[in-house]
């Protein structure tokens, strides 16, 4: 019998957990519980559409996968010291790595040798080209200079992930 996809009271589904051939992988956890990352990946339908669009475009230009982390938990409650991530409209994305490491252990910050700035710029550009994207936080000043126009901003704690927000409608 097929497993029924969990759906919360908002009607949101969990991001498919790295289906075969996808251009993204998933990471993260909830309250440091192992294997709980999916519980923090309830996404607004618009965000799911965006992720599916970007992963397709990304696969056309790069054979690595990008990592998708926290989105929101069921019913949009607060969790793990996120001040937002309640409406399924925001997500955390890891910067790109130079290697092809994926999964929970593939963490990377802008200070690491394995951090791939050029690939991260390509990925952010893809997101910014989409009209739904309203906000990107990531602290790499070189990225901000390259992607002009103040589209990428700095904010405390955003050295090891991009925070991306989309409009609801």
């Amino acid at each position, binding site marked *: 019998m097929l497993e029924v996809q969990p759906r919360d009271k908002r009607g949101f589904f969990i991001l498919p957990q790295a289906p075969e051939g996808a251009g993204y992988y998933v990471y993260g956890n909830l309250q440091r519980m192992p294997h709980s990352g999916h519980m923090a990946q309830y996404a607004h339908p618009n965000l799911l559409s965006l992720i599916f669009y970007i992963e397709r475009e990304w696969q056309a230009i790069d054979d690595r996968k990008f990592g998708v982390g926290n989105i929101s938990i069921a019913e949009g409650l607060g969790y793990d010291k996120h001040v*937002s991530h309640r409406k399924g409209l925001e997500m955390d994305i890891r910067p790109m790595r130079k290697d092809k490491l994926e999964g929970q252990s593939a963490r990377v910050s802008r200070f690491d040798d394995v951090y791939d700035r050029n690939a991260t710029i390509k990925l952010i550009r893809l997101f910014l080209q989409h009209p739904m994207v309203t906000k990107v936080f990531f602290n790499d000043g070189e990225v901000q200079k390259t992607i002009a126009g103040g589209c990428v901003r700095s904010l405390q704690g955003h050295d090891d992930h991009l925070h991306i927000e989309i409009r609801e409608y």
Partner: protein
Amino acid sequence: MHTRLACCAMALALFSPSQAADKPPAWTGEPRPLRGDYQIYGGTLAEMLPPTRNDWKVAIMVKGELARELFAQLGPDVKQEQACSTSADYRERRRGDISCVHTKEAGYACYFGLDLRTGKGMYGAIC
């Protein structure tokens, strides 16, 4: 004249209690209980790891009356493009390592942290 005085007295009697309700309680210096929680971690808030002797941080969240007072003191709200969320009911204020948010649903909450390796304060929340 008496009528005017009576009107003034009546206006004061009517409006004073409502104005007093908007004011913060008078300062007493009394310690008050806290409401909130904390999270101990290593690594970063976005990529938490088990804490170690050399990497031990705590992120603290306070709610309720203290959060409301901190929010009021921190003002004004950050600009929408710098706030963590553009939701209509979301308000955010920051100064240094303290950030406070208000939403209709969750009320007031403030966040700050400590890094025990340095003994210094740090941020206690991420977007």
